[in-house]
């Protein structure tokens, strides 16, 4: 099952990138995610591994994932090593006026699970889809708020300098 959604954020790509690639901040914006722990020496970047869990229905699903694409500041993708079969991707593209289009894609399933797997994927989809949209909204709020605070700090510094 593949689910994706996107949002336009009033901040440059680099600001969004710094947040989505920081494992310490994932729980603050990723809706439904209950665990996102670094499971490798590398904290972020190509090859970094995380143990993640996502609440859906009666269980927290997920497992060990590994970053397989890390093209700063455009593409950040991961795939599962253990647990639920999954692929995820943050896709950032520049928009006019210093804005960024942020897209989150998730694909998930259980290979070999047959009809019950097919049914479970579809029954979980509305829930996952809601979490993806909420994640983008929360990320947008965080990024734009930080952008605002950063500009305010610059203004204050400028005023003190003058």
């Amino acid at each position, binding site marked *: 099952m593949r689910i994706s959604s996107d949002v336009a954020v009033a901040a440059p790509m680099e600001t969004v990138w710094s947040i989505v690639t920081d494992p310490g901040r994932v729980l603050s914006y990723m809706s439904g995610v209950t665990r996102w722990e670094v499971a490798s020496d590398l904290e972020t970047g190509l090859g970094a591994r995380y143990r993640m869990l996502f609440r*859906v*229905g*009666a*269980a927290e*699903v997920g497992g060990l994932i590994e970053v397989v694409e890390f093209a700063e500041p455009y593409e950040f993708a991961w795939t599962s090593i*253990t*647990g639920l079969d999954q692929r995820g991707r943050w896709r950032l593209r520049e928009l006019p006026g210093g804005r960024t289009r942020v897209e989150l894609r998730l694909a998930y399933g259980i290979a070999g*699970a*047959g009809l019950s797997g097919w049914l479970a994927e579809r*029954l979980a989809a509305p829930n996952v889809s809601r979490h993806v949209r909420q994640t983008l909204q929360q990320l947008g709020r965080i990024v734009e708020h930080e952008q605002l605070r950063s500009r305010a700090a610059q203004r204050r510094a400028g005023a003190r300098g003058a």
Partner: protein
Amino acid sequence: MAQADTTRSARRNGHEPSVPADDPEAANSANAGGSPSLAGRAWRELAGVIQRRIPRADLDERDPDYIREQLPLFWLLSSVWFRGEVRGLGNIPDEGPVLLVGNHSGGNMIPDTMVFTVAFSTYFGVERAFYQLAHNLVLSLPGLSWLRKFGTVAASPDNARKALSSGAALLVYPGGDYEVHRPSWESSRVDFGGRKGFIRMALEQEVPIVPVVAIGGQETALFLTRGERLARLLALDRVLRLKVLPISLSLPWIVNVGDFGHIPLPAKITIETLPPIDLRAEFGPDPDLDEVYDHVLRLMQDALDALAAERRFPVIG
């Protein structure tokens, strides 16, 4: 011949045979009255058949690939039918052997075990070895052989020892058949019937105890009575290791005697995992069994009372 098979089969499963071949008194009791009647022989034959059905308790039968492929089906049952909610799995140590001690509900269809097993397997991954002890009768019911692939083994101290010493997580229900068939109006009562073997096992294997408290299972049918007197009258305790012959109102039988399977009502099942208890750290190098038993039961009863207080309606939750 049936007796010899029973004895062999029982020992193979890691527990003492229910009717020891060299114990004439026990064998006579199994005759429900002492006489070598037709009924007595029939009982022993039945016991032999059941014991032979009990699969060899081999930890290697657990199959992570099978569990992984079946998880969507059980996730559907757990999420849609039972609206399962499992809290506090983070209290279970991330690795190493651990004794998960649960209160048992829901009759022989063990809905709470299913909801917990799905949650445990997705949380820690199917790669983490996880076994569950079950009554011999459950393992011998037709069509339930797949339980062995999920890591269910016959309840016995030997099997518990094997599982824990292999470094696995082990789920036990000390209340067993006694607790699981308690009347529905005792749903929010932890009742281990004074069984303390789990504490001895945790001390022997030096593993932490993690209490697992569940509510909702007793609302999947209307459990009326354990039928202890009936079980004694029919000598089930000696022949089948059954201290109960439960009577309930359940689907599709309406009146269900013995609970050899039923369709559980879609009751909401909520499970809470409590913080681990390191027995020697909390109770000293030589803990008193009664004190530990009382402590574990008190913690579990407090948690169960809180879960019961959250429920507004039977079945709906």
